[in-house]
Protein backbone atom coordinates (compact mmCIF):
# COMPACT_ATOMS: atom_id res chain seq x y z
CA UNK A 1 0.00 0.00 0.00
CA UNK A 2 1.14 3.51 -0.82
CA UNK A 3 0.37 6.30 1.61
CA UNK A 4 1.07 9.95 0.80
CA UNK A 5 0.80 12.32 3.72
CA UNK A 6 0.61 16.12 3.58
CA UNK A 7 2.75 16.36 0.46
CA UNK A 8 3.73 19.86 -0.70
CA UNK A 9 5.64 20.91 -3.79
CA UNK A 10 6.25 24.29 -5.40
CA UNK A 11 8.26 25.10 -8.48
CA UNK A 12 10.30 28.33 -8.90
CA UNK A 13 10.13 28.93 -5.19
CA UNK A 14 10.61 32.49 -3.87
CA UNK A 15 10.20 34.04 -7.30
CA UNK A 16 7.31 35.87 -8.94
CA UNK A 17 6.61 32.74 -10.97
CA UNK A 18 6.17 30.47 -7.95
CA UNK A 19 3.85 27.63 -8.84
CA UNK A 20 2.34 25.68 -6.00
CA UNK A 21 1.39 22.28 -7.37
CA UNK A 22 0.61 20.40 -4.17
CA UNK A 23 -0.19 21.79 -0.77
CA UNK A 24 -0.82 19.23 1.96
CA UNK A 25 -1.85 16.53 -0.51
CA UNK A 26 -3.03 13.20 0.94
CA UNK A 27 -3.64 9.96 -0.92
CA UNK A 28 -3.83 6.24 -0.20
CA UNK A 29 -3.45 3.62 -2.90
CA UNK A 30 -4.71 0.11 -2.14
CA UNK A 31 -2.50 -2.90 -2.55
CA UNK A 32 -2.76 -4.97 -5.73
CA UNK A 33 -5.16 -2.53 -7.36
CA UNK A 34 -4.72 -0.40 -10.43
CA UNK A 35 -5.48 3.27 -9.85
CA UNK A 36 -5.84 5.57 -12.83
CA UNK A 37 -4.90 9.23 -12.42
CA UNK A 38 -6.57 11.57 -14.87
CA UNK A 39 -6.91 15.32 -15.22
CA UNK A 40 -6.16 18.22 -17.53
CA UNK A 41 -2.61 19.25 -18.42
CA UNK A 42 -0.85 20.96 -15.56
CA UNK A 43 -3.07 19.38 -12.88
CA UNK A 44 -0.09 17.66 -11.29
CA UNK A 45 -0.39 14.05 -12.57
CA UNK A 46 3.19 13.73 -13.78
CA UNK A 47 4.54 15.75 -10.87
CA UNK A 48 2.82 13.33 -8.51
CA UNK A 49 4.45 10.34 -10.21
CA UNK A 50 7.82 12.11 -10.25
CA UNK A 51 7.50 12.83 -6.53
CA UNK A 52 6.68 9.18 -5.80
CA UNK A 53 9.39 7.87 -8.14
CA UNK A 54 11.94 10.28 -6.68
CA UNK A 55 13.02 12.13 -9.83
CA UNK A 56 11.89 15.31 -8.04
CA UNK A 57 12.03 15.97 -4.33
CA UNK A 58 9.04 17.03 -2.24
CA UNK A 59 9.24 20.22 -0.16
CA UNK A 60 7.27 18.69 2.67
CA UNK A 61 5.31 15.57 3.50
CA UNK A 62 5.84 11.85 3.67
CA UNK A 63 5.67 8.98 1.21
CA UNK A 64 5.25 5.53 2.72
CA UNK A 65 5.35 2.41 0.58
CA UNK A 66 4.33 -0.88 2.22
CA UNK A 67 5.19 0.50 5.64
CA UNK A 68 8.61 1.80 4.51
CA UNK A 69 9.17 5.55 4.65
CA UNK A 70 10.84 6.31 1.31
CA UNK A 71 10.60 10.11 1.53
CA UNK A 72 14.35 10.59 1.87
CA UNK A 73 15.35 7.83 -0.57
CA UNK A 74 17.14 8.90 -3.74
CA UNK A 75 15.68 7.95 -7.11
CA UNK A 76 17.93 4.90 -7.56
CA UNK A 77 17.20 3.70 -4.02
CA UNK A 78 13.47 3.96 -4.59
CA UNK A 79 13.78 2.17 -7.92
CA UNK A 80 14.47 -1.06 -6.02
CA UNK A 81 10.83 -1.01 -4.87
CA UNK A 82 9.24 0.94 -7.72
CA UNK A 83 9.00 0.03 -11.38
CA UNK A 84 8.30 2.74 -13.89
CA UNK A 85 7.35 2.97 -17.54
CA UNK A 86 7.55 6.32 -19.31
CA UNK A 87 5.81 7.78 -22.34
CA UNK A 88 9.01 7.55 -24.38
CA UNK A 89 9.66 3.85 -25.16
CA UNK A 90 13.43 4.44 -25.17
CA UNK A 91 13.70 5.43 -21.51
CA UNK A 92 13.08 2.00 -20.06
CA UNK A 93 15.54 0.00 -22.17
CA UNK A 94 19.18 0.05 -23.26
CA UNK A 95 18.80 0.43 -27.05
CA UNK A 96 22.24 -0.80 -28.11
CA UNK A 97 21.95 -3.98 -26.06
CA UNK A 98 19.98 -7.04 -27.13
CA UNK A 99 16.61 -8.13 -25.73
CA UNK A 100 18.37 -10.90 -23.83
CA UNK A 101 20.90 -8.49 -22.29
CA UNK A 102 18.13 -6.06 -21.32
CA UNK A 103 16.12 -8.85 -19.69
CA UNK A 104 19.17 -10.09 -17.80
CA UNK A 105 19.87 -6.57 -16.49
CA UNK A 106 16.26 -6.14 -15.37
CA UNK A 107 16.43 -9.54 -13.69
CA UNK A 108 19.25 -8.24 -11.44
CA UNK A 109 17.30 -5.14 -10.39
CA UNK A 110 17.89 -4.24 -6.77
CA UNK A 111 20.53 -6.97 -6.38
CA UNK A 112 24.28 -6.66 -6.05
CA UNK A 113 26.11 -6.55 -9.38
CA UNK A 114 29.32 -8.56 -9.35
CA UNK A 115 32.09 -9.72 -11.68
CA UNK A 116 30.14 -12.84 -12.58
CA UNK A 117 28.78 -13.18 -16.09
CA UNK A 118 25.49 -11.38 -16.61
CA UNK A 119 24.03 -13.82 -19.11
CA UNK A 120 23.53 -17.20 -17.52
CA UNK A 121 22.49 -20.06 -19.74
CA UNK A 122 20.00 -21.36 -17.17
CA UNK A 123 18.09 -18.09 -17.19
CA UNK A 124 17.63 -17.82 -20.94
CA UNK A 125 14.67 -20.19 -20.97
CA UNK A 126 13.06 -18.26 -18.13
CA UNK A 127 13.29 -15.02 -20.13
CA UNK A 128 11.98 -16.78 -23.20
CA UNK A 129 8.94 -17.97 -21.24
CA UNK A 130 8.25 -14.49 -19.87
CA UNK A 131 8.46 -12.99 -23.36
CA UNK A 132 6.31 -15.78 -24.80
CA UNK A 133 3.48 -14.69 -22.49
CA UNK A 134 3.63 -11.27 -24.11
CA UNK A 135 2.73 -12.94 -27.39
CA UNK A 136 4.60 -10.43 -29.55
CA UNK A 137 7.16 -12.86 -30.90
CA UNK A 138 9.98 -11.23 -28.91
CA UNK A 139 11.04 -14.64 -27.58
CA UNK A 140 12.43 -15.41 -31.04
CA UNK A 141 14.42 -12.18 -31.18
CA UNK A 142 16.50 -12.56 -28.02
CA UNK A 143 19.68 -11.54 -29.83
CA UNK A 144 18.16 -8.55 -31.63
CA UNK A 145 19.29 -5.14 -30.46
CA UNK A 146 16.44 -3.26 -28.86
CA UNK A 147 16.97 -0.23 -31.11
CA UNK A 148 15.69 -2.31 -34.04
CA UNK A 149 12.34 -3.00 -32.36
CA UNK A 150 9.16 -1.01 -33.03
CA UNK A 151 7.88 1.47 -30.46
CA UNK A 152 5.18 -0.92 -29.30
CA UNK A 153 7.59 -3.83 -28.92
CA UNK A 154 10.04 -1.64 -27.06
CA UNK A 155 7.35 -0.36 -24.73
CA UNK A 156 6.12 -3.91 -24.04
CA UNK A 157 9.69 -4.88 -23.20
CA UNK A 158 10.02 -1.83 -20.91
CA UNK A 159 6.85 -2.94 -19.18
CA UNK A 160 8.08 -6.49 -18.66
CA UNK A 161 11.43 -5.19 -17.43
CA UNK A 162 9.76 -2.85 -14.95
CA UNK A 163 7.39 -5.55 -13.69
CA UNK A 164 9.34 -8.81 -13.80
CA UNK A 165 10.84 -8.46 -10.33
CA UNK A 166 7.40 -7.84 -8.80
CA UNK A 167 7.93 -4.27 -7.58
CA UNK A 168 5.86 -2.95 -4.66
CA UNK A 169 4.54 -0.26 -6.97
CA UNK A 170 4.37 0.19 -10.72
CA UNK A 171 4.11 3.71 -12.15
CA UNK A 172 2.82 4.04 -15.69
CA UNK A 173 3.32 7.56 -17.01
CA UNK A 174 1.08 7.79 -20.10
CA UNK A 175 2.96 4.77 -21.32
CA UNK A 176 0.83 4.24 -24.43
CA UNK A 177 0.52 7.89 -25.47
CA UNK A 178 3.37 7.79 -27.98
CA UNK A 179 2.02 4.70 -29.77
CA UNK A 180 -0.49 4.47 -32.59
CA UNK A 181 -4.06 3.55 -31.52
CA UNK A 182 -3.82 -0.12 -32.47
CA UNK A 183 -0.45 -0.70 -30.78
CA UNK A 184 -1.61 1.35 -27.82
CA UNK A 185 -4.54 -1.06 -27.36
CA UNK A 186 -2.26 -4.06 -27.53
CA UNK A 187 0.18 -2.61 -24.98
CA UNK A 188 -2.69 -1.60 -22.70
CA UNK A 189 -4.11 -5.13 -22.87
CA UNK A 190 -0.68 -6.60 -22.07
CA UNK A 191 -0.38 -4.17 -19.17
CA UNK A 192 -3.66 -5.36 -17.71
CA UNK A 193 -2.71 -9.02 -18.04
CA UNK A 194 0.69 -8.42 -16.46
CA UNK A 195 -0.65 -6.43 -13.51
CA UNK A 196 -3.22 -9.13 -12.81
CA UNK A 197 -0.77 -11.97 -13.25
CA UNK A 198 1.87 -10.52 -10.93
CA UNK A 199 -0.74 -8.69 -8.77
CA UNK A 200 1.21 -5.43 -8.68
CA UNK A 201 -0.03 -2.22 -7.09
CA UNK A 202 -0.21 0.19 -10.02
CA UNK A 203 -0.69 3.90 -10.63
CA UNK A 204 -1.43 4.80 -14.22
CA UNK A 205 -1.64 8.23 -15.80
CA UNK A 206 -3.81 8.36 -18.85
CA UNK A 207 -5.44 10.91 -21.08
CA UNK A 208 -7.66 8.27 -22.58
CA UNK A 209 -10.85 8.07 -20.49
CA UNK A 210 -11.89 4.79 -22.04
CA UNK A 211 -8.56 3.14 -21.17
CA UNK A 212 -8.65 4.60 -17.70
CA UNK A 213 -12.09 3.13 -16.96
CA UNK A 214 -11.52 -0.22 -18.64
CA UNK A 215 -8.11 -0.99 -17.21
CA UNK A 216 -8.28 0.32 -13.66
CA UNK A 217 -10.10 -0.43 -10.43
CA UNK A 218 -10.23 3.15 -9.22
CA UNK A 219 -10.25 6.53 -10.91
CA UNK A 220 -8.85 9.71 -9.42
CA UNK A 221 -9.21 13.02 -11.18
CA UNK A 222 -6.83 15.80 -10.24
CA UNK A 223 -7.17 19.50 -10.83
CA UNK A 224 -4.62 22.07 -9.66
CA UNK A 225 -3.11 19.55 -7.29
CA UNK A 226 -6.37 18.56 -5.64
CA UNK A 227 -8.48 15.43 -5.94
CA UNK A 228 -11.80 16.43 -7.50
CA UNK A 229 -13.12 12.93 -8.18
CA UNK A 230 -12.33 9.58 -6.55
CA UNK A 231 -14.52 6.66 -7.56
CA UNK A 232 -14.49 2.99 -8.38
CA UNK A 233 -14.01 2.58 -12.10
CA UNK A 234 -17.20 0.54 -12.45
CA UNK A 235 -19.19 3.43 -11.02
CA UNK A 236 -18.25 6.00 -13.66
CA UNK A 237 -18.86 6.25 -17.39
CA UNK A 238 -16.72 7.77 -20.08
CA UNK A 239 -19.34 10.49 -20.71
CA UNK A 240 -19.40 11.54 -17.08
CA UNK A 241 -15.66 11.95 -17.03
CA UNK A 242 -15.58 13.84 -20.29
CA UNK A 243 -18.27 16.18 -18.97
CA UNK A 244 -16.27 17.04 -15.86
CA UNK A 245 -13.15 17.40 -17.97
CA UNK A 246 -14.87 19.87 -20.32
CA UNK A 247 -16.16 21.99 -17.43
CA UNK A 248 -12.68 22.18 -16.00
CA UNK A 249 -11.13 23.06 -19.33
CA UNK A 250 -13.70 25.78 -19.93
CA UNK A 251 -12.88 27.24 -16.53
CA UNK A 252 -9.25 27.34 -17.55
CA UNK A 253 -10.08 29.07 -20.82
Amino acid at each position, binding site marked *: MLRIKKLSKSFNKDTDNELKIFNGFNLEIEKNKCTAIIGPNGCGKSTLLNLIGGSIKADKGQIILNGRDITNFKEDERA*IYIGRVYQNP*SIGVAPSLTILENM*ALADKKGEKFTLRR*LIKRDNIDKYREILKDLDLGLENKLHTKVKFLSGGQRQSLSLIMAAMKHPDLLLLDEHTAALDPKTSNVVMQKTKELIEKYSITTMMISHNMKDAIEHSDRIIMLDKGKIILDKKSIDVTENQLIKIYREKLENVA
Partner: protein
Amino acid sequence: MNSLIMTSLEQGLIFGILAMGVLITYKILDIADLSVEGTFPFGAFIFAKFISIGINPIISTLLAFFFGTLAGLSTAILFTKLRIKPLLSGILTMTILYSVNLKTNGKANVPLFSYSSVYDLGTTVVILIVLVLIIKIALDEFFKTEIGYLLIATGDNESLVRSLGKNSNRYKVLGLMLANGLVALSGALMAQIQGFVDITMGSSIIVVALASIIIGDTIGKRSNRIKNTTRAILGAIIYKLIGGIAIDLGLEPSDLKAVSAIIVIVFLSYNNFFADLIDFKKIKGGEKYAKNKKTIKELQ
Protein backbone atom coordinates in the same frame (compact mmCIF):
# COMPACT_ATOMS: atom_id res chain seq x y z
CA MET B 1 61.13 -0.78 -45.29
CA ASN B 2 61.11 -3.81 -43.00
CA SER B 3 62.24 -1.82 -40.02
CA LEU B 4 59.60 0.74 -40.83
CA ILE B 5 56.88 -1.91 -40.70
CA MET B 6 58.32 -3.32 -37.48
CA THR B 7 58.44 0.08 -35.78
CA SER B 8 54.92 0.86 -36.97
CA LEU B 9 53.68 -2.49 -35.68
CA GLU B 10 55.31 -2.02 -32.28
CA GLN B 11 54.05 1.52 -31.88
CA GLY B 12 50.68 0.49 -33.30
CA LEU B 13 50.34 -2.15 -30.59
CA ILE B 14 51.18 0.43 -27.91
CA PHE B 15 48.64 2.81 -29.40
CA GLY B 16 46.22 -0.13 -29.44
CA ILE B 17 46.23 -0.04 -25.64
CA LEU B 18 45.69 3.73 -25.78
CA ALA B 19 42.81 3.23 -28.23
CA MET B 20 41.19 0.56 -26.03
CA GLY B 21 41.29 3.03 -23.14
CA VAL B 22 39.73 5.84 -25.13
CA LEU B 23 37.19 3.35 -26.49
CA ILE B 24 35.77 3.00 -22.97
CA THR B 25 35.13 6.72 -22.57
CA TYR B 26 34.41 7.81 -26.14
CA LYS B 27 32.40 4.84 -27.42
CA ILE B 28 31.02 3.06 -24.40
CA LEU B 29 30.38 5.90 -21.93
CA ASP B 30 29.90 8.52 -24.65
CA ILE B 31 32.14 11.04 -22.85
CA ALA B 32 34.79 13.11 -24.65
CA ASP B 33 37.57 12.70 -22.08
CA LEU B 34 40.47 15.03 -22.85
CA SER B 35 42.38 14.19 -19.69
CA VAL B 36 44.13 11.44 -21.70
CA GLU B 37 46.30 14.20 -23.21
CA GLY B 38 47.78 14.53 -19.74
CA THR B 39 47.57 10.89 -18.64
CA PHE B 40 49.63 9.55 -21.56
CA PRO B 41 52.78 11.50 -20.59
CA PHE B 42 51.81 11.10 -16.91
CA GLY B 43 52.20 7.33 -17.25
CA ALA B 44 55.59 7.89 -18.88
CA PHE B 45 56.79 10.29 -16.18
CA ILE B 46 55.57 7.99 -13.40
CA PHE B 47 57.50 5.14 -15.00
CA ALA B 48 60.60 7.33 -15.28
CA LYS B 49 60.30 8.34 -11.64
CA PHE B 50 60.07 4.79 -10.31
CA ILE B 51 62.67 3.27 -12.62
CA SER B 52 65.11 6.02 -11.70
CA ILE B 53 64.82 5.25 -8.00
CA GLY B 54 65.62 1.62 -8.68
CA ILE B 55 62.19 -0.05 -8.96
CA ASN B 56 61.88 -3.01 -11.30
CA PRO B 57 60.55 -2.06 -14.80
CA ILE B 58 57.51 -4.35 -14.60
CA ILE B 59 56.40 -2.87 -11.28
CA SER B 60 57.14 0.67 -12.54
CA THR B 61 54.94 0.00 -15.56
CA LEU B 62 52.13 -1.33 -13.36
CA LEU B 63 52.47 1.73 -11.13
CA ALA B 64 52.01 3.91 -14.22
CA PHE B 65 48.66 2.14 -14.78
CA PHE B 66 47.68 2.68 -11.16
CA PHE B 67 48.54 6.40 -11.19
CA GLY B 68 46.64 6.71 -14.45
CA THR B 69 43.50 5.41 -12.75
CA LEU B 70 43.92 8.16 -10.15
CA ALA B 71 44.00 10.78 -12.92
CA GLY B 72 40.78 9.27 -14.28
CA LEU B 73 39.28 9.44 -10.80
CA SER B 74 40.11 13.15 -10.65
CA THR B 75 38.24 13.86 -13.91
CA ALA B 76 35.34 11.71 -12.77
CA ILE B 77 35.04 13.53 -9.45
CA LEU B 78 35.08 16.90 -11.25
CA PHE B 79 32.06 16.02 -13.29
CA THR B 80 30.06 13.64 -11.11
CA LYS B 81 30.50 15.38 -7.77
CA LEU B 82 31.34 18.99 -8.69
CA ARG B 83 29.07 18.90 -11.77
CA ILE B 84 31.58 20.50 -14.13
CA LYS B 85 30.90 19.59 -17.77
CA PRO B 86 32.81 16.41 -18.80
CA LEU B 87 34.74 18.17 -21.58
CA LEU B 88 35.94 20.91 -19.23
CA SER B 89 36.66 18.38 -16.45
CA GLY B 90 39.03 16.58 -18.80
CA ILE B 91 40.75 19.80 -19.83
CA LEU B 92 41.19 20.80 -16.17
CA THR B 93 42.73 17.45 -15.24
CA MET B 94 44.99 17.64 -18.30
CA THR B 95 46.14 21.12 -17.24
CA ILE B 96 46.85 19.99 -13.69
CA LEU B 97 48.75 16.98 -15.02
CA TYR B 98 50.99 19.23 -17.13
CA SER B 99 52.39 20.77 -13.96
CA VAL B 100 52.43 17.44 -12.14
CA ASN B 101 54.37 15.86 -15.02
CA LEU B 102 57.02 18.57 -14.88
CA LYS B 103 57.26 18.22 -11.11
CA THR B 104 57.50 14.40 -11.11
CA ASN B 105 61.11 14.30 -12.32
CA GLY B 106 61.89 17.99 -12.08
CA LYS B 107 62.40 18.33 -15.84
CA ALA B 108 60.52 18.22 -19.13
CA ASN B 109 62.69 15.56 -20.76
CA VAL B 110 64.06 12.43 -19.10
CA PRO B 111 66.36 10.04 -20.97
CA LEU B 112 65.79 6.37 -20.11
CA PHE B 113 68.59 4.70 -22.10
CA SER B 114 70.56 3.78 -19.01
CA TYR B 115 67.70 1.94 -17.34
CA SER B 116 66.25 -1.49 -18.03
CA SER B 117 62.79 -1.82 -19.56
CA VAL B 118 60.05 -4.44 -19.91
CA TYR B 119 61.37 -5.11 -23.41
CA ASP B 120 64.54 -6.58 -21.96
CA LEU B 121 62.49 -9.70 -21.16
CA GLY B 122 62.45 -10.86 -24.80
CA THR B 123 61.57 -9.75 -28.30
CA THR B 124 59.82 -6.39 -28.16
CA VAL B 125 57.07 -7.20 -30.61
CA VAL B 126 56.26 -10.53 -28.92
CA ILE B 127 56.05 -8.90 -25.50
CA LEU B 128 53.72 -6.25 -26.89
CA ILE B 129 51.49 -8.75 -28.68
CA VAL B 130 51.14 -10.82 -25.51
CA LEU B 131 50.42 -7.75 -23.42
CA VAL B 132 47.87 -6.34 -25.85
CA LEU B 133 46.11 -9.72 -26.07
CA ILE B 134 45.95 -10.04 -22.28
CA ILE B 135 44.40 -6.58 -21.97
CA LYS B 136 42.00 -7.21 -24.85
CA ILE B 137 40.78 -10.52 -23.44
CA ALA B 138 40.47 -9.07 -19.93
CA LEU B 139 38.41 -6.15 -21.25
CA ASP B 140 36.21 -8.41 -23.37
CA GLU B 141 35.58 -10.63 -20.36
CA PHE B 142 34.92 -7.62 -18.13
CA PHE B 143 32.24 -6.34 -20.49
CA LYS B 144 30.43 -9.66 -20.18
CA THR B 145 30.14 -9.37 -16.40
CA GLU B 146 27.27 -7.82 -14.48
CA ILE B 147 29.30 -4.72 -13.62
CA GLY B 148 30.63 -4.51 -17.19
CA TYR B 149 27.09 -4.47 -18.57
CA LEU B 150 26.12 -1.72 -16.11
CA LEU B 151 29.00 0.35 -17.51
CA ILE B 152 27.71 -0.21 -21.05
CA ALA B 153 24.15 0.59 -19.97
CA THR B 154 25.35 3.81 -18.31
CA GLY B 155 26.64 5.04 -21.66
CA ASP B 156 23.55 3.76 -23.45
CA ASN B 157 20.75 4.93 -21.16
CA GLU B 158 21.49 6.29 -17.72
CA SER B 159 17.87 6.28 -16.62
CA LEU B 160 17.74 2.52 -17.08
CA VAL B 161 20.70 2.13 -14.72
CA ARG B 162 18.94 4.27 -12.12
CA SER B 163 15.77 2.24 -12.57
CA LEU B 164 17.80 -0.87 -11.71
CA GLY B 165 18.51 0.74 -8.36
CA LYS B 166 22.07 1.72 -9.24
CA ASN B 167 23.90 5.03 -9.10
CA SER B 168 25.06 5.53 -12.69
CA ASN B 169 27.80 7.95 -11.61
CA ARG B 170 29.73 5.09 -10.04
CA TYR B 171 30.07 3.39 -13.38
CA LYS B 172 31.27 6.58 -15.02
CA VAL B 173 33.95 6.79 -12.33
CA LEU B 174 34.92 3.18 -12.93
CA GLY B 175 35.05 3.66 -16.72
CA LEU B 176 37.17 6.80 -16.51
CA MET B 177 39.59 5.17 -14.09
CA LEU B 178 40.00 2.12 -16.27
CA ALA B 179 40.38 4.22 -19.43
CA ASN B 180 43.01 6.54 -17.98
CA GLY B 181 44.86 3.63 -16.41
CA LEU B 182 45.20 2.04 -19.84
CA VAL B 183 46.27 5.33 -21.42
CA ALA B 184 48.95 5.84 -18.75
CA LEU B 185 50.11 2.27 -19.27
CA SER B 186 50.50 2.87 -22.98
CA GLY B 187 52.41 6.08 -22.20
CA ALA B 188 54.83 4.11 -20.01
CA LEU B 189 55.31 1.50 -22.75
CA MET B 190 55.91 4.22 -25.34
CA ALA B 191 58.53 5.90 -23.14
CA GLN B 192 60.40 2.61 -22.80
CA ILE B 193 60.42 1.89 -26.52
CA GLN B 194 61.61 5.36 -27.54
CA GLY B 195 64.06 5.59 -24.65
CA PHE B 196 62.99 8.94 -23.27
CA VAL B 197 60.07 10.78 -21.72
CA ASP B 198 59.01 14.14 -23.06
CA ILE B 199 56.40 16.61 -21.82
CA THR B 200 54.99 17.03 -25.34
CA MET B 201 54.45 13.32 -25.97
CA GLY B 202 50.76 13.58 -25.06
CA SER B 203 49.83 16.49 -27.27
CA SER B 204 46.93 15.64 -29.60
CA ILE B 205 47.16 12.00 -28.51
CA ILE B 206 43.34 12.04 -28.37
CA VAL B 207 43.30 12.54 -32.14
CA VAL B 208 45.55 9.49 -32.57
CA ALA B 209 43.21 7.46 -30.36
CA LEU B 210 40.09 8.65 -32.17
CA ALA B 211 41.67 8.06 -35.57
CA SER B 212 42.51 4.50 -34.50
CA ILE B 213 38.98 3.84 -33.22
CA ILE B 214 37.40 5.32 -36.32
CA ILE B 215 39.66 3.43 -38.73
CA GLY B 216 38.94 0.27 -36.73
CA ASP B 217 35.22 0.86 -37.07
CA THR B 218 35.44 0.72 -40.83
CA ILE B 219 36.92 -2.81 -40.74
CA GLY B 220 34.11 -5.23 -41.56
CA LYS B 221 31.65 -2.48 -40.84
CA ARG B 222 28.51 -4.58 -40.98
CA SER B 223 29.92 -7.45 -38.98
CA ASN B 224 28.86 -7.83 -35.37
CA ARG B 225 31.43 -10.52 -34.80
CA ILE B 226 34.47 -8.25 -34.60
CA LYS B 227 34.71 -6.86 -31.09
CA ASN B 228 35.24 -3.17 -30.40
CA THR B 229 38.55 -3.92 -28.73
CA THR B 230 39.84 -5.84 -31.77
CA ARG B 231 38.80 -2.96 -34.00
CA ALA B 232 40.62 -0.45 -31.79
CA ILE B 233 43.85 -2.47 -31.88
CA LEU B 234 43.73 -3.08 -35.64
CA GLY B 235 42.80 0.56 -36.20
CA ALA B 236 45.82 1.72 -34.22
CA ILE B 237 48.17 -0.56 -36.14
CA ILE B 238 46.76 0.53 -39.50
CA TYR B 239 46.96 4.17 -38.43
CA LYS B 240 50.63 3.78 -37.51
CA LEU B 241 51.40 1.90 -40.74
CA ILE B 242 49.72 4.55 -42.88
CA GLY B 243 51.60 7.26 -40.98
CA GLY B 244 54.90 5.38 -41.30
CA ILE B 245 54.45 4.82 -45.02
CA ALA B 246 53.41 8.43 -45.57
CA ILE B 247 56.59 9.68 -43.88
CA ASP B 248 58.64 7.16 -45.83
CA LEU B 249 57.13 8.54 -49.03
CA GLY B 250 58.19 12.05 -48.09
CA LEU B 251 55.54 13.49 -45.79
CA GLU B 252 57.09 15.90 -43.32
CA PRO B 253 56.80 14.36 -39.81
CA SER B 254 55.54 17.74 -38.61
CA ASP B 255 52.60 17.49 -41.03
CA LEU B 256 51.52 14.13 -39.64
CA LYS B 257 49.32 15.67 -36.95
CA ALA B 258 47.31 17.72 -39.41
CA VAL B 259 46.95 14.67 -41.63
CA SER B 260 45.69 12.63 -38.65
CA ALA B 261 43.14 15.28 -37.79
CA ILE B 262 42.01 15.38 -41.42
CA ILE B 263 41.62 11.57 -41.38
CA VAL B 264 39.36 11.90 -38.31
CA ILE B 265 37.34 14.69 -39.95
CA VAL B 266 36.89 12.74 -43.17
CA PHE B 267 35.82 9.52 -41.44
CA LEU B 268 33.48 11.26 -38.98
CA SER B 269 31.80 13.35 -41.66
CA TYR B 270 31.55 10.30 -43.88
CA ASN B 271 29.70 8.48 -41.10
CA ASN B 272 27.50 11.50 -40.37
CA PHE B 273 26.42 12.35 -43.90
CA PHE B 274 27.59 10.21 -46.75
CA ALA B 275 27.00 6.75 -45.28
CA ASP B 276 23.29 7.60 -45.16
CA LEU B 277 23.33 8.84 -48.74
CA ILE B 278 24.90 5.62 -49.98
CA ASP B 279 22.44 3.51 -47.98
CA PHE B 280 19.64 5.61 -49.38
CA LYS B 281 20.69 4.85 -52.93
CA LYS B 282 20.76 1.14 -52.17
CA ILE B 283 17.13 1.08 -51.03
CA LYS B 284 15.12 0.00 -53.99
CA GLY B 285 11.58 1.26 -54.03
CA GLY B 286 8.85 2.71 -56.18
CA GLU B 287 6.42 1.22 -58.65
CA LYS B 288 9.18 -0.55 -60.54
CA TYR B 289 9.97 -2.84 -57.62
CA ALA B 290 6.58 -3.21 -55.94
CA LYS B 291 4.99 -6.64 -56.29
CA ASN B 292 1.53 -5.56 -55.29
CA LYS B 293 0.65 -2.57 -57.44
CA LYS B 294 -2.65 -1.75 -55.75
CA THR B 295 -2.76 1.56 -53.94
CA ILE B 296 -3.43 1.71 -50.21
CA LYS B 297 -6.91 3.00 -50.85
CA GLU B 298 -7.77 0.00 -52.99
CA LEU B 299 -6.53 -2.34 -50.27
CA GLN B 300 -8.84 -0.76 -47.70
